[in-house]
Every structure is written in C-alpha cells, then in structure tokens.
C-alpha cells in the first residue's frame, strides 16, 4: 500500500518536472506576447499584469507580418502538395516492389545539412530567374516534405493487402488507376498524417527561406528575426511573432493527435 502511494507520488513528481520543462517556456512566451516592453524585461517576471495587444498591433499594423505569414502558408502548403504528389506514387512503388534504397536515399537528402544545397541552388535558381520568389521556396522545401511523405506512407502502403491490388490489376486497372481508386482511399489517414507533418516541418524551416526568399516572399519565421536588431530587441513583438508562428502547427497537431500517434506507430509491429 505504502509502496503504491510512493509510486504515485513519484509519478506525480516526474509529471510535474516534465510539465515544468515543457510548459513553462511556452507559457513564458505566450505571457510575454501580452506584456508591455518594460514588463517583458522585468525580473522577477510578473505573473499578474494588465495584458496589452500592443505587440500584436506592432506585428500586424506596423510591419508586414501578415504578408509574411501568408507567404509561409503558401510555401508550406505548396511544398506539402508537391511532396505528396511525388511522395505518394513513389512510396507506393517502393512498397509494392519492396525497394527500400530509394527511401533511404531521400532520408539522406533530408539529413544532409541545408547549407550543402544552398550555394548550388542559389546559382541554379538565379540563372532561371526564380530566386526571391515563393516558387523557389515551394520547390526547395520539397526536400523536406518528400521524405516525410514517403516515410510516413510506407508502413500504410505495406499494410495494404497485395490481393487488393492484384484484383484491380486482373480487372484491367492501370498503375495510376490502382493507386488513385484502390490504394489511396485505403491510406487516407496516412496521407492526412503525412500532409500535416510535412506542412509543420516546412512551416518551421528557416534556412532555405533565409537565403532564397526575396523582399516580398520572406516567410514569417525569417521575418520574425527582424525584431532582433542592432539597437534593441523588441522582445514583445518577437514573442507575439512566436505565438503566431507556433499557432498553426499546434492547432494542426491537436486536430490529428490520435491519428498522428497511430500513423507514426503504423507498421511498427508486423502481424
């Protein structure tokens, strides 16, 4: 009995410690976004204060952050669609033919440091006049979204009964018809998970947009650094930007939380 109570107390302490590490920084950021410039820097930090929206007014009223957020949305959305358009058939082919090396190759591309691509890309895209456009970001972010799509979808596709595909083939369906009409409806949950993960990773990616974007195509995450300057850092606006940037991935993750866990665990156990 005593042992059980001690165990529960230990669990509570462990949970508290984890929450402290995870929740406090986020709470700090959110609270700071609603504080005045002086209150943000106050030490010890004030838990009770009169909230202000001045940082959000600064963000959306006095800077072009809304445009930059829209750029992020277009780039993350576009690269997610591109990643899925290429990734779904690719993953289907890999799963069907039981080839793993192409998937591994895409993983290497994803794991390679982004700086490796930057210079050649800059030269290439400048030559074709794409540097500084949102198109270039959509294309380059496919390096992030394509491996995500393939790796998330592989276990779903491997779980599709081969008989199902073979029946469709016997009925005369061609490869693209098999994929679109037979396989895709079965793996919709996986596609949703892949889409959301790809969107989140692209949304948060910084480096390619830093170098390849232009004045008008800057993404929100790159623009947020403009609040750090020689002069002084506008912590309030920076925190407000952090809240705005974190919101879409957070909302999407909450929406698909259960599917996400299921999707990531799919294929973990064969049977």
């Amino acid at each position: 009995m005593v042992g059980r109570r001690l165990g529960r107390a230990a669990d509570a302490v462990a949970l508290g410690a984890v929450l402290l590490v995870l929740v406090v920084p986020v709470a700090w950021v959110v609270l700071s976004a609603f504080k005045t410039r002086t209150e943000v820097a106050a030490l010890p930090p004030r838990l009770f204060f009169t909230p202000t929206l001045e940082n959000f007014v600064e963000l959306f009223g006095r800077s072009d952050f809304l445009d930059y957020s829209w750029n992020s949305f277009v780039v993350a959305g576009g690269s997610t669609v591109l990643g899925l358009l290429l990734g779904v058939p690719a993953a289907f082919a890999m799963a069907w033919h039981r080839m793993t090396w192409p998937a591994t190759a895409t993983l290497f591309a994803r794991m390679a440091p982004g700086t490796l691509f930057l210079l050649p890309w800059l030269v290439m895209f400048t030559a074709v006049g794409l540097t500084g456009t949102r198109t270039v970001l959509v294309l380059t972010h496919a390096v992030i979204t394509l491996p995500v799509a393939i790796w998330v979808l592989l276990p779903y596709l491997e779980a599709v009964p081969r008989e199902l595909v073979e029946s469709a083939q016997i009925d005369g369906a061609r490869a693209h018809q098999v994929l679109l009409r037979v396989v895709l409806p079965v793996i919709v949950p996986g596609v949703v998970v892949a889409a959301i993960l790809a969107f989140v990773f692209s949304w948060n990616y910084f480096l390619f947009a830093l170098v390849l974007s232009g004045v008008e195509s800057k993404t929100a995450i790159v623009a947020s650094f403009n609040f750090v300057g020689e002069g002084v850092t506008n912590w309030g606006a920076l925190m407000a930007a952090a809240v705005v940037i974190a919101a879409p991935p957070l909302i999407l993750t909450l929406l698909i939380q259960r599917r996400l866990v299921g999707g990531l665990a799919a294929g973990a156990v064969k049977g």
Partner: protein
Amino acid sequence: MKRRELIGGALSLAAAPAFAQSGGFDWRRQDGQTITLMFNNHPWSQAMREMATEFTARTGIRARIEIFNEEQFRARLTTFMQGRSAELDVFMTLASREGPVFRKAGWYADLAPLLADPSLTAPDYDAADFAASIQGANVFERQVVAVPINQEGPLFYWRRDVFERLGIPEPRTLEDIPAAAAVIKAREPGMIPWAARGLRTAIPYAFVGFVNNLGGSVATPDGKPGMSQPGSVKAIEMYASLLKEYGPPGALNHTFTQVIELLGAGRVAMVHESSNEFANIMRFPNRANDLGVKILPPGKESGISKPAAIGWGIAISAHSRKQAAAWTFLQWATSKETQAKLVSAGVAPPRASVFKGPAFDAWTAELPIRRAWAEALVQLGREGSGVFQPPTDRIPEAREKIGDAVQQVVLGRATPAEAARMADEELAKIQ
C-alpha cells in the same frame, strides 16, 4: 606620410574632378532601374527603409531593401557573394571587421573610379568631408570599398540618480569603475552594478578600450600579439572581474542586446556599450533623465582614453550589373542632405559638416544627454581606434581568441597572465 593623410589624399584626388564640375548633375540618369539592397538591422537601415520613397522620387530608381538581423544578414550576404549573384547590388559592410577578407575574395566594387567620374558623382558630394579616421577603414591600397554611413563605438553609460543617491562620485578614471561597482553591490542589492559584452566574439569591441586605457595594446610595436603586455593583462583582469563580481547572471552569453535591455529597463547602474544604441536607450521610460554618458574614463596611470571606434559603410557588389544605379543610391544615402535628416533617427553622422551643422546642433540642444552623447562621439572620433586585434586578415577569428581569454578568466579556468599567454599563442598562429 601618415596612413590617415594618405587616405584623405586618395579620396580627395578621386573626388577632385567631381568638385571641378559645377552644378547640373543629373540625378535621374538611371531612371527606371531597380536595385536590391541588403542591410543589417540597424537604426540607419530602418531610417533608410522609411526614406526609400524620397530616393525613388529624386532618382527614378526603385530600391528593394532587405533587412536582416546581423547573423542572418551575414549568412545571406556571404551565400549571395559566393554564388557570384548579380541579384544583389548594395550591401552594408563593417570593413574594419570583414574588409580584408571580402576584398581578397573580390566582393567589393572599387568606388574610387566612380568617385572620380564627374558624370556619375554630384559636384557637391564632397567625399573629403567624411572623418578621415572612419573613411580610412574603407580604403585598402587606394581601393575604396565602401562609403561611411555612421560612426560608433562603445561609450560609458551610468545611472546618475543611483550614483547621487549613494553619494558615489562620477567615475573619472577607469579604476573608479570597480570601486563604484563595489559600493553599488553592497548598498543597492536590487541593482546590477555593471554590464558589458561577455559573449566571446562580442567582447573585443567593448574590451579594447580597457586595454588601451590601462597602458596595454592588442599588438606590440612590431605587430606581434600583445595580450601578455602588463597593461593588457591588467585589462583582462579588470574586464573579467567586473563581469564576474558585478555583472548580471549569464553575463558570458550577453552581447549588446542583453546589455541594452538591462540598461533600458533600469536594472543596471553602469555599462560600456555602443554609442549606436543611444536612440534605443532613450525610448525606455526615464532613461533620458537619469543616465549620464561619456567616453570610457581614462586609465589612472596612462591618462588616455582610446576605445574602439568604427563605422558601418555601404558597398557595391562586384557582381552587380547595375553599379551606376547602385552608386547613385550610395551618393544619395551618404549625402550631406540625407545624413542631416538621419540625425533625428539617432544616427551619428560621419560627415564633419553634418556633425557641426545646424540640424545636429538643434537636435542635441533639445536634451542635455543628447549633448553629452554628441560630445562623447566627437571625442571618440578623435581618440578612438579601429584596431581590436593584432594585424591579421582573419579578424573575426582573432577577436574570438581575445574574447576567449577574457572568458577563461571569468570562468576561473586561467589567471589573467595565463589567459593572455594562451591568447598570444593562438593569435600568432593566425597572423
């Protein structure tokens, strides 16, 4: 002939034909062009963004201005330059830091021929009006790599109200600073006595004044690393001790952003931080009334004050295909007229005529602290030094070695003499 005179001469010669021509300069010669400019996030850049429409109205040239935080600015700039991209026409540069490397890489267009071309340079541009000490950092073997946009250096800011309340006299010598910090620490527990840059790469900017004022030097007279000289060792000891004994928690991760936040929020009594931050500090409540500002006090024995003095400049990319339009922007942005307007944004003008002009005078007359800041800048321009490290092309690395010596002492891993010896050994390797 001294280097400074040589530089002044080179600039005057380059600009002479421009002065010879009278009137009639066509500002709209590049009408219809669009140029791309990349700036570090700086009060000057922010002001430029606001004024870009004036430039377009006058010249017909459209300016696409990109502003990034310094770290990101350098990452983007160097990638563009390495890629020999013609997408970028104008960029901000700190030639005292990156000048030798950028020049060796062939990234700067030479401005000397542009300055000398009367069809491209307005007759009233007056290049000789720039302070020689500032423009000197932009000239390498007669190649003019940039034109100055501001002048800056670290200044000593202190809370006059705290000093008055505690009966501490205003520091007159460098040695008075630790003494004052000790009193503040003992009697005003809520107040951090001292703050300065503690981040390794950022330290030398604020630290070199301590070295010079205490009779040391970052280089020996024959150009070898000079950190082991007695005055330099004393400087390491004092700078490290101020951070360790009287500095804020986490001081070794601090650069100007943290120092200025602390000063602005009223949590620190003394700092040694950039003159360039003045306008931002003044935006915090009460600081215009309770702060004092002046050049770092001289060493008791040396009697000299020689802090860092630098200036950002704007350069034209060697890969730009619109150099004439880019030069039109450089001229406009560094003209007497534009620089006079920038004064109200707190940008210290590098032009002597603007510094002594009515606009600057009227602005400084509005507040006593502005006057004190302007006087400190005059002294900084006269006495300051752009040299933070022994002679080398690998300037950022050299500064890191010097910053590391200070950090080692703060962390208690080495005595000042040991840290100085190690720094000298490391610095010698990159000379």
